[in-house]
């Protein structure tokens, strides 16, 4: 069964969607979408380093993205520049360095489109193991830091005053962000990973009344997007990443219709 590339892509996509659901909710709640973008941009550098040193891609992306995240935290402490300027600085300089390194690697055949937009043909059994084991670890850690992370998302001072150590939770969450980008890069592509995090969560926000429901709908939305996106990718021969994101956009638009209806009901 795993011999079929499409089945492999489907299993990989389902694994990714289960993890991006809850993480995406935090990205929306904590307004971290540009932070996600920055980490994703820096992933290119991770990929090129993996190729040049014949290293595992997911692992290399994880290391580079974590380093970028730690650099950001240090820069925030040491400079007076606003957060978005620092994010732009890191995103574009790491992207630029990644592209420069690609230039030096002319001896390697490089599927840059696959890297940017995802490639379902490229998912190997090895990738499945990384996605499912890595994903399970991410969810486990997220469950452990849920209380302090969620409380500090609502109000930092309450969490700190009542002894939940929100700074530690934030640092761990940053590492989880790097990890999800590392494991989903092959499926969605580095330009669209943040979309996979945000759009199902945004869709879920429109139709949920509690945080738990939002996480649940976000996972369901992600799963539907992956299944819908992958089948249409197969049918129309389009890149997997854009197909999945387009499918999630469709669900988002449907969720807007739902809001209009409920407003009408109220009146």
């Amino acid at each position, binding site marked *: 069964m795993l011999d079929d590339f499409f089945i492999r892509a489907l299993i990989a996509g389902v694994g990714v969607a289960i993890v991006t659901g809850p993480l995406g909710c935090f990205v929306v709640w904590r307004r971290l979408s540009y932070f996600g973008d920055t980490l994703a941009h820096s992933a290119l550098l991770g990929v090129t380093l993996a190729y040049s040193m014949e290293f595992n891609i997911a692992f290399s992306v994880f290391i580079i993205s974590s380093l970028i995240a730690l650099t950001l935290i240090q820069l925030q402490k040491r400079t007076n520049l606003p957060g978005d300027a620092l994010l732009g600085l890191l995103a574009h300089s790491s992207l630029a360095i990644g592209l420069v390194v690609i230039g030096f690697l002319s001896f390697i055949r490089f599927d840059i489109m696959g890297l940017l937009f995802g490639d379902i043909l490229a998912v190997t059994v090895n990738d499945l193991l990384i996605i499912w084991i890595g994903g399970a670890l991410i969810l486990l850690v997220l469950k452990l830091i849920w209380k302090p992370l969620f409380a500090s*998302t609502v109000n930092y*001072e*309450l969490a*700190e*005053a009542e002894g939940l150590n929100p700074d530690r939770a934030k640092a761990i969450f940053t590492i989880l962000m790097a990890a999800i980008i590392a494991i989903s890069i092959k499926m969605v592509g580095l330009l669209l990973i943040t979309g996979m995090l945000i759009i199902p969560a945004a869709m879920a926000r429109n139709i949920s009344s509690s945080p*738990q429901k939002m996480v649940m709908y976000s996972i369901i939305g992600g799963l539907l997007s992956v299944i819908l996106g992958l089948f249409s990718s197969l049918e129309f021969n389009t890149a997997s990443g854009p197909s999945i994101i387009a499918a999630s956009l469709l669900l988002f638009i449907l969720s807007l219709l739902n809001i209009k209806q409920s407003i009408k009901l109220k009146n």
Partner: protein
Amino acid sequence: MSSSQNILVKLNGAGFSLNNKWLVKGVSLQVEKGKIVTLIGPNGSGKSTTAKIALGIYKKIDGSVEKYTSKVGYVPQKISIDWTLPLRVNDFMILTENISNELIDEALSLTGVIHLKDKNLGDLSGGEFQRVLLARAISKKPELLVLDEPVQGVDFTGEIALYELIKKISDELNCGILLISHDLHTVMSATDHVVCLNGHVCCSGSPMDVAKNNEYKALFGEQASQILSRYEHRHDHVHTSEGEIKKN
């Protein structure tokens, strides 16, 4: 009298500065089990800062804080909640600690907002939200309660009832309360210990001692006898921009 085992939190000459300006300096006080300590003082005198030092929110402080409990309930003066979160009152009640449904209902009933349990937090009025904040802080039966103007925006009858509730909680749970209040009447009737702040501790002691204190009289003027009326702040010293104190 008071044994050291009863101390919940103790500030020793604590101070906090931001951008080279002292918000508050040299504060020493302690909160004990079953006692209510009230901070009074004009706006900008460092009351909230002192509360945050006691809670450990401000870490780079002058002096030291000794905290002997981790069961803390906090009602901040200002709270900004991001409405990108779908959050009901019920979700908010278990924000920092998972507590049983009975305890949630009990606390919400005590502050008179049980009917709002399933409402979205963003849909509450200012006074309703304040009652929910207080309910959340007391529901986990803390050893130390820090209440920063807990009844702001609450209607007049509610205000009196909530202060009575706070007094009752302090007796029933035997918890220590650090209270910040502008209501001098409440301060004088329900408090065990008053600390009068103005960037530093102007005076402190039992309400009666403080009322007799010359510095308190200087602070609150002729109106000290008419504590319910508007009070005016009079200085026997001025504060320079570096935070130093010069006597007049």
